[in-house]
């Protein structure tokens, strides 16, 4: 028998079993996986419903309107133990945002300083920065939090022996007391002035870069922006008759009076997250700057661009393209690490949720709220990151 090799096997003439078709097999695999998953979910759901019924826990989010009955240490909005569970969760969420935002700002500053320091030609600065990074990268963040909380802040003196810091601030084992600004009538104008200043500087910066593209002339952007963002509010402050005063903490015989106080829980979490994340940011910054090839700097120098301007116009814009994506994921990490607040009792979303979970037993609902909030944060961050990447990506020929 001879086989005619010139005729390829036709589609209507399958050469083997239908199971050998990768497409068919793919659908079979997927069908089996889906079936198993559905069965698993069904099994878990029926178990959960049965368990909840036995424990007499009503499912659903109705419990959010119940009276909380507990107090939180620090809250940005009014909260008493008579408030609802829902409000308690909002308080927790705002506290998470507060520590995340302040931590991100500080971590970025420290991280950039250390990252640039690691690249310094100064041996001492480079080694110091390296020691900083190697120490903080290799210790659990939780340990850093406890270091500040039970190692440093807890052994500070009692309120009556508070340590005085510059700018009328005091620190003791109850936290940091600082002057509280008191806004009198007319202070809203300062806020308006600040907003106007920021918007105007954005427009000016755009105009200046357009002008530079067209004519090659650089307008004094930095000074104008500084004038708009700082000068304008200050001017308004003076014109409006200095409507902001400060309530300064005063050291009394037994305690401090006046001012605002942030508790040691917030302080230690904030310090720990800043220092810990800064080590990672420093490495990202270093990698970003080193990622700009040396030829770029040399070319700029060859064109006669001064070193300072080279950094600003050639190195930084290209380094930022490398730095920003991992930087955003570090910001996200910091936000997620802020959930360690529960270990020292700072009332963030997870700590408040944990308290409610213990009181009501609504495990599924609380965990789902956690997941939704954190997922929203992280997905919106990654959306931003994708948008930014697309905008900044190198346009190649």
């Amino acid at each position: 028998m001879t086989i005619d090799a010139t005729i390829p096997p036709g589609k209507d003439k399958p050469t083997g079993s239908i199971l050998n078709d990768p497409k068919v097999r793919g659908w079979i695999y997927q069908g089996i996986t889906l079936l198993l998953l559905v069965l698993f979910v069904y099994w878990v759901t029926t178990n959960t419903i049965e368990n909840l019924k036995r424990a007499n826990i009503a499912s659903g989010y109705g419990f959010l309107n119940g009276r909380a009955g507990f107090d939180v240490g620090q809250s940005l909005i009014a909260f008493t133990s008579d408030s609802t569970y829902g409000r308690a969760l909002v308080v927790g969420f705002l506290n998470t945002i507060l520590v995340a935002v302040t931590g991100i700002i500080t971590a970025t500053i420290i991280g950039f300083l250390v990252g640039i320091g690691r690249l310094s030609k100064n041996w001492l600065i480079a080694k110091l920065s390296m020691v900083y990074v190697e120490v903080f990268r290799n210790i659990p963040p939780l340990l850093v939090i406890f270091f500040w909380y039970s190692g440093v802040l807890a052994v500070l003196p009692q309120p009556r022996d508070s340590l005085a810091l510059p700018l009328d601030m005091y620190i003791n084992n109850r936290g940091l007391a600082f002057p509280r600004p008191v806004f009198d009538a007319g202070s809203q104008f300062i806020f308006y002035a600040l907003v106007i200043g920021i918007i105007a500087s954005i427009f000016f910066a755009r105009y200046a870069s357009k002008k530079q593209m067209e004519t090659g002339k650089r307008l004094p952007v930095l000074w104008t922006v500084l004038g708009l963002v700082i000068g304008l509010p200050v001017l308004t402050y003076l014109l409006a008759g200095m409507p902001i005063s400060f309530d300064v903490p005063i050291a009394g015989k037994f305690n401090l009076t006046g001012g605002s106080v942030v508790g040691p829980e917030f302080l230690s979490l904030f310090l720990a997250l800043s220092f810990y994340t800064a080590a990672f940011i420093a490495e990202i910054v270093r990698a970003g700057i080193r990622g700009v090839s040396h030829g770029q700097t040399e070319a700029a120098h060859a064109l006669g661009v001064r070193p300072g301007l080279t950094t600003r116009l050639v190195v930084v814009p290209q380094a930022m393209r490398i730095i920003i994506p991992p930087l955003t994921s570090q910001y996200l990490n910091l936000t997620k690490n802020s959930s360690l607040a529960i270990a020292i009792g700072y009332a963030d979303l997870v700590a408040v949720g944990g308290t409610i979970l213990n009181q009501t037993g609504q495990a599924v609902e609380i965990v789902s709220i956690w997941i939704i909030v954190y997922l929203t944060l992280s997905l919106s961050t990654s959306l931003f990151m994708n948008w930014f990447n697309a905008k900044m990506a190198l346009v190649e020929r």
Partner: protein
Amino acid sequence: MNTHQTNFVRTSMLAQSAPPVLEKGYVAWFRKNLFATPKDTVLTIIAILLLAWFLPPMIKWLFIDASWTGGGRGVCATVAQGGSQPEGWSGACWAFVGAKFDQFLFGRYPIDERWRPALVGILFVALLVPMLIPKIPHKGLNAILLFAVLPILSFFLLLGGVLGLPYVETPLWGGLMVTLILSFVGIAVSLPFGIILALGRRSKMPVIRMICTIFIEIVRGIPLITVLFMASVMLPLFLPQGMTVDKFLRALIGVSFFASAYMAEVVRGGLQAIPKGQAEGADSLGLGYWQKMRLIILPQALKLVIPGIVNTFIGLFKDTSLVSIIGMFDLLGIVRQNFSDANWASPVTPLSGLVFAGFTFWLFCFGMSRYSGFMERKLDKGHKR
């Protein structure tokens, strides 16, 4: 023939003159590395001032003023605090760490049975060290012993209840032992699971891809502590009545889940970096999907992402400290629990304990990152562009 007057040419060598003082030795090094420009000089002076402000008190606290021996809180507290140290004293309390060292290692594991975790530890080191040194042969056998035989043996040795070994329940486990078990199991589980998840996310089958993507994104989007809460609070809800899961096992499941998702993203990065031609070459040779992955794609992809994998390991090792929040006593948990021991409570005890725990964690993590750097250089076959 024309002869040149060559009297002006020296016939003997000049003796070597010493190099300029400013270009050689310490002076040059200082000039070049510390005082190159006025800005550098200012920075150096600031750094030296910082060190002078920071370093001597630290050394004094850690070593000179530290109390190294003693049987109770007396050696670590001032007279006013009910101890024997002079007023104003502050130093590390290493006596506390020394007295509690066994607990820091094994937790509340029964004292008579502590040879069991110690034996597991010795076996672990004995198997791990030859695994890590590239020159030692029989890596396959070694891997089977380390990743298959040792876990089973350790399970029976640590838990007991067989061969006349008394049963030791997991709530008694603690200390560095728990930290190491959690991270070892986490690492051993997360690598294969991460690879499967990464392959699934890049699969051509839409259902598989979607399931893997959703799992990875959800787990990566939430903090570990919520995953641990889920494992410790919700797992009992999910199971039928009467079926319980040990608390330790719950933490293990949570940690492994979490690490797998991160590992998957690292591995995916490696898979994406492999040129398409490799897969096509494998296809044209007639390799099946799993052969292609096992023989061609994964060896290259994994090698590329060794730093990322080790970073995930380090992250996992650090993250095990979070189980102390859900009421387990890992190294950090047991150190913290001992702060409240009335025998040792003093203002310097917490800091001393934390410095010890921090140093231990640091030692492991730093060792891992150094080893990964070494392996990276070793495995680099010069393919780098």
